[in-house]
């Protein structure tokens, strides 16, 4: 394992940024491990969530933003509910993911792709069009056959629309996206 | 903390014997330099500070009044500082009616071990008063 030179590699700006954007204080964490103990995704994470918290306290920006864990977190709120220090851990995970996306660290391409596809659909129609998301996702991910086994079940049961519903207010939704995008680029 | 000009303003402080007076002593023992404008009156408890003292101080020429007691819950007399807080908060709201900027009056908590905090309190408060300049009360105004 690599030796970390804490003096040099301690990124205090990163800690401040995460604290500010999440509204949570990472130093409140005393490493009890309750979040990791409860997190249903621990077995799939590369770093369990308590270690993400520890890496954050140690200012290890690169390691965190490259981790898979921050993408695999499903915001199930178990950690937040059980943290004895009342840290909204899920909020911190969310913030880390937002920062990772912003700074182009994407260690779980499929998840990002799925989210992107979802929002694309939302932007385009005002509501999401589930079949469209699935098809678009399959096309873009190159995994054409994801869940094809489920297709007939869903279609036969008439549960999914074949055509998107577009709401009247679609432009209004699109304008939310646009204004927020402008705000970001305006800031930079 | 040398003053820019030697012109001092008149600041009086009421400090409780157990905490803040001790805190000011601690600052002294640790040689934490402070502006020289402040004069200190020792009282047993911040709860002993009658709002009247503050008003009289202003009317007879003070430019700033500081009250400092024990931290809430640390009061030597169990809840004297709560009384103080309630009363002094009320006073602060009334001061503008006497034509006195309420920033000229400040109350705070400093414990006997907080020499550094005392230094900060004095320095900052003095700065505020210098920012406001000498107090001029309209002539003829009297307090009922």
């Amino acid at each position, binding site marked *: 394992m690599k030796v970390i030179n804490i003096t040099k590699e301690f990124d205090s700006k990163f800690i401040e940024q995460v604290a500010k954007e999440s509204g949570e204080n990472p130093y409140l964490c*005393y490493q*009890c*491990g*309750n*979040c*990791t*103990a*409860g*997190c249903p995704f*621990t077995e799939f994470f590369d*770093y*369990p969530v*308590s270690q993400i918290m520890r890496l954050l306290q140690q200012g290890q920006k690169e390691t965190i933003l490259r981790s898979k864990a921050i993408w695999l977190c499903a915001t199930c709120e*178990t950690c937040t509910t*059980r943290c*004895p*220090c*009342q840290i909204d851990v899920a909020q911190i995970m969310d913030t880390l993911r937002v920062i990772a996306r912003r700074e182009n660290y994407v260690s779980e391409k499929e998840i990002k792709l799925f989210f992107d596809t979802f929002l694309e659909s939302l932007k385009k129609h005002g509501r999401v069009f589930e079949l469209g998301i699935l098809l678009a996702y399959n096309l873009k991910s190159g995994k054409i056959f994801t869940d094809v086994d489920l297709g007939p079940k869903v279609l036969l049961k008439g549960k999914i629309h074949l055509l998107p519903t577009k709401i009247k207010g679609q432009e209004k939704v699109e304008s939310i996206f646009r204004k927020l995008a402008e705000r970001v680029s305006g800031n930079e | 903390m*040398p*003053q820019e000009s*030697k012109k001092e303003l*008149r600041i*009086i402080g009421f400090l409780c014997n157990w905490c803040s*007076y001790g805190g*000011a*002593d601690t*600052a*002294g*023992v640790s*040689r*934490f*330099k*402070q*502006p*020289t404008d402040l*004069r*200190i*009156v*020792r*009282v*047993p*408890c911040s*709860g*002993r500070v*009658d709002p*009247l*003292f503050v008003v*009289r*101080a202003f009317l*007879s*020429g*003070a430019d700033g009044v500081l009250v400092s007691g024990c931290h809430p*819950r640390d009061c*030597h*007399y*169990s*809840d*004297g500082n709560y*009384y103080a807080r309630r*009363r002094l908060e009320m006073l602060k709201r009334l001061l503008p009616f006497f034509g006195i900027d309420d920033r000229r009056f400040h109350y705070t908590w400093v414990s006997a071990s907080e020499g550094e905090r005392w230094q900060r309190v004095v320095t900052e408060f003095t700065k505020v008063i210098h920012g406001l300049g000498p107090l001029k009360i309209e002539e003829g105004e009297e307090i009922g």
Partner: protein
Amino acid sequence: MRVGVFICHCGNNIAGTVDVQKVAEEMRKIPGVAYSTTYVYTCSEPGQNEIIEAIKKYKLDRVVVAACSPRMHELTFRKAVEKASLNRYFLEMANIREHISWVGDDKELNTQKAIDVVRMAVAKVMNNKPLFSSSFKLTKRVLVIGGGVAGMQAALDCADGGLDVVLVEKSPSIGGMMARLDKTFPTIDCSICILGPKMVDVAQNERIKLYAYSEIEDVKGYIGNYEVTIRKKATYVDWNKCTGCGLCMEKCPSKNAYDYFNFGIAPTRAINIPFPQAIPKKAKIDPNYCRYFLKGKCGVCAKICPTKAIDYDMKDELVKEDVGAIIVATGYSLMGVENFPEYGGGKYKDVITGIQYERILNASGPTGGHIKRPSDGKEPETVVFISCCGSRDKSVGIPYCSNFCCMYIAKQAILTKDHLPKSQSYVFYMDIRAPGKGYDEFTRRAQEEYGVRYIRGRVSKIYPRGEKLIVRGADTLLGIQVEVEADLVVLANAVISNPDAAKLAEKLRISYDTFGFYVESHPKLRPVETNTSGVFLAGACQGPKDIPASVSQGSAAASKVLALFSKDVLESDPQVSYVNPNVCVGCMKCVKTCPFGAIKEEELRDGRKVAKVIETVCAGCGICTSTCPCGAIQLQHFTDNQILAEVYAFASGK
């Protein structure tokens, strides 16, 4: 008026940055100042003599010493002026060292500041009045509240020192938490074997008057002279007749009463003696479960009792005792198991608390000392201990550490292995806190010799699978999730204050912290005193602590009381409030604000009601003085006039 002013150089400490000569000169200009001088070291013996001489020579009647902080030398100089036959309250100090010479470098400004401050002291001293302390008698009896190990120790030590002791215990027997324990760390000696003899000593000591199943109703008075009202709660059994034979308990048909002594681990009878070694060993009826009280019929116990001790009509009784000091040793409570829903507390029978496990381990407990789990009575093979349940957990409002659970977990894990050699224990912990003598060695032994598996991490959830409980936690050292299949789970539940702690504190006028634990005078230097003189603390009522610490405090509190009672009279501090009955309008605002209950209503001969300060209770805070709308109540030595004199002197320096 002839004031003398003495400005101290303190070597170079003051004279270095204050022009002391100039200050002395300025003082001479004040009308009423008869003498003003400087000296190198005023507190030294020649310095003090200088003052004494000057008082005589210049007929001074007031003295101001401008030197260091009064917190340092006020007493020194008070004694000095007293030697010159001046009342000690005719001395004032001006602090020109800590507040001036040490915190400012500019000599000119410092000197000006010193002149102002000394002038303020002169103004004040001119308004000073002579004050005299009065002496009063005291009752040399002590009240001990709480009969746990701390209270028993205090009671026994006081009795040994020749004092009469009144011991009031809320529950039917003394012994407290320690009486429930099986063995004690770090020596693993039997708890009741070392406590039992002490309990008997308490019962047999002629100087100790025990009120069991009693509570403090009211406390009046002040140090040296308290009048305490004690409520003897109805037991429905005449304890003068009851012999503790236990026949009633055997025959009582109401078998599902809650067992407070065993923390509900098994039921008891509506009439019961809490445990075999109970002191006093007397029966008591719990009317919440007794059929006679609930349904109006039964009466079995009354029929069976050989001494006819049962009395269904018994009422609470109030008795009064006079004492001169009070030791509070009311101990602690424990957070209920239902506070841990993620662990299935209250839902899964085999999730229990540490104290319940003590009862299971205990030979006189409900299982006769055989480890059987509550659900099906089977011997557990795997026992999981979880530390810090509720403690150090801000989300439930308890940020503090419960102090002794790390240790009793290690003890219980060792005892589990002793009882069931084939069993395996696990401990989920965050830190192991074992700072006492022999303590760390003890927790190491649990791991090294007894093979207890310590896992560093918290437990997040417990759920059943078949007969097992799955304990899901984290091993943070490995960074993984772990599961243990347990038969029994023991929670080290948080130590909390007694539910009635605040109520008792208010009766005694002592302070308590946010968590309901009593506050000592000084955490290091006066650990068993309170801010109310005459009231002392011992044991876990001040905060979680183990037996050695509780016993030390019991002895310490006793020694404080003995020291207090070594005097025949007490002297009061005259810096107290005084009501001028001619000015007082009887609004009683002061009565309501005084935090010490030192003011009472008094009827004058002309029928007018006015306030009156009980000098011995008044602590001298002056809150009443700033409350009184008429200026009728004045804190001596800090009167409105005295403080305003300083304010005006300050203003005249403009």
